[in-house]
């Protein structure tokens, strides 16, 4: 996908506020940010600092009050609802803190879910799902439902679901937040592999310092303002 100034994600002067009982609560104050293609970026900050809100804007599941969010050269804030939904299905892979798998579907079917929106032939869909499940090391648990998997395994299924459409960017909201230390390390290794081996751009929100250490770059948000911290 085309990038602007080498950045696949370009956030320009974005503002976002929430309203509680008609009182405006600013969450993001004039944020600007550029994420180069192939970057692994961690967003850190205390609760309420606006990091998830920024992630939601980049992923196209929320809209800014002001400013632009360009991903791959497209100002996604200007897209209509159905265009935005289509854009997300093609370009974004999501990883949630609580995995958000459908409990009635098997691991295989959960991974296959985003492919329902594509017109790929059945055979190709199968290849995509099997590749993703192999990549996360769960090809032997395809028929298991989420309730039959550990938290770490469920998150790996969620990662397989995030990559099955070969998205442009992967956004992860606290991917290790609900996991034990070992499972968290496995998940971070997997994300790292996706970034290094498959050159996926990853934007991750985390509270976990160890998780953030796997990222190339860590940005701190505090009260809606961005404080950069660059690590080599």
């Amino acid at each position, binding site marked *: 996908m085309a990038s602007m100034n080498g950045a696949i994600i370009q956030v320009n002067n974005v503002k976002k506020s929430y309203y509680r009982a008609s009182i405006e609560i600013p969450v993001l104050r004039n944020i600007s940010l550029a994420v180069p293609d192939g970057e692994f970026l961690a967003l850190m900050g205390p609760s309420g600092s606006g990091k998830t809100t920024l992630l*939601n804007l980049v*992923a196209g*599941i*929320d809209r800014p009050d002001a400013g632009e969010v360009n991903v791959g050269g497209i100002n996604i804030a200007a897209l209509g*609802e*159905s265009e935005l*939904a*289509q*854009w*997300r*299905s*093609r370009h974004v892979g*999501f990883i*949630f803190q609580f995995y*958000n798998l*459908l*409990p*009635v*579907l098997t691991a295989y*079917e959960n991974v*296959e*879910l*985003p492919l*329902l*929106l594509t017109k790929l032939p059945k055979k190709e869909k199968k290849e995509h799902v099997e590749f993703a499940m192999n990549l996360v090391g769960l090809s032997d648990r395809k028929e298991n439902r989420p309730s039959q998997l550990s938290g770490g395994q469920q998150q790996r299924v969620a990662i397989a*679901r995030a990559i099955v459409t070969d998205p442009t960017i992967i956004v992860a909201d606290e991917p290790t937040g609900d996991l034990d230390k070992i499972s968290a390390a496995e998940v971070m290794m997997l994300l790292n592999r996706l970034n290094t081996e498959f050159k996926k751009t990853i934007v991750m929100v985390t509270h976990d310092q160890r998780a953030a250490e796997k990222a190339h770059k860590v940005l701190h948000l505090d009260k809606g303002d961005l404080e950069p911290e660059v690590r080599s």
Partner: protein
Amino acid sequence: MSVFRMIFKNTLRHPLRNFLTMLGIAVAVSAFGLLRTVLTSWDAAIEVAAVDRLVTRDAVSFIFPMPLAYAEKIEKVKGIETLCFFNWFQGVYKDKQNFFPRMAVQPDRVFSVYPEYILSPTELEAFEKERKACVIGESIAQQFNLKLGDQMTIEGDIYPGNWDFIIRGIYKRRDEKVDGTQMFFHWDYLNERMNQVAPGRANQIGWIVAKLSPGANPAAVADEIDNQFKNSSTETKSETERSFNQSFFESYSAIFTAIRIVSVLIIGIILLVLGNTMIMSTRERTQEYAMLKTLGFSGQNLISFIAGESILLSFIGAMIGIVLLYLLVQVVSAVVPKQFFPVFFIAPSTYIITFSAAVALGFLAALQPVMTTLKTRIVDGLRFIG
């Protein structure tokens, strides 16, 4: 995996709740269908009545007899092909509960006037020849396990005494709308006994059914008949059989209206039962639907999932309900006295209306959950704690 498979899996998510919902729909559907069957069975009695048959009776009331001579005079009216006169006999066969219409008739005419009662030529001949012979409908024969040659004794009430009959014919119905519960016997047999025991009641007839010639104008013929007896001690009222039946059933119109209202309420119950289940289900899945939207599933996809599940529930419920309805109608038909429902069958329109209503309600029940799901912002949905 297909969208349908996803709908199917969601439907199985809460087996007990969804089973109870489907059972609720099934019971409501069968109740709705049963009430409609009551209405259509009553209507069938009107529909089956011919428009080319005139019923002539005493102008004051159906219960007052007319002189036998009226039949001869009416037969001469232009536009009448043939006629048959009747006397309501009633009586008791073994037990008062065993009610079915019993009538004294002209044996050589009744089946010409009522071609919908089908009697074989041999049985008709046997019926005509023997004074004590009677013909019964197939439903009565089946209900009381009666066959040709069996003797029936009826205890008279309107016409006192014991009356013996021999079954010489069992008529078949042209179709299921036709009443199969009648009993016909010789009017002469009745009249002879009346001549002996109550001469004042002899040579009297209850009503006359006249079959019109092709092209005859029923209203004109009816007027001509009634004009003949105007200002006599026994004036007549003639009307087509259909309007005769209609005016008879009009006296029950309040009951029909009540049944119709209850039917509508049952539809409302289906909507509430299903709507409640769908609202609970979608509320529980708020996060899941938000996740699906996040992945790029459109509003149309979500409508398919939610409405599909609701329609599937109502579809299965309606199928079970229709099976229940069929069984119920068999039971009701067997136990309810025939005087209430001479014919009791599920009309094809009942199947269609019942089934379509249930499926349409499946869609309606999904409207509120669909609207809520579509309105919920992704970020709010993902944060939702049920």
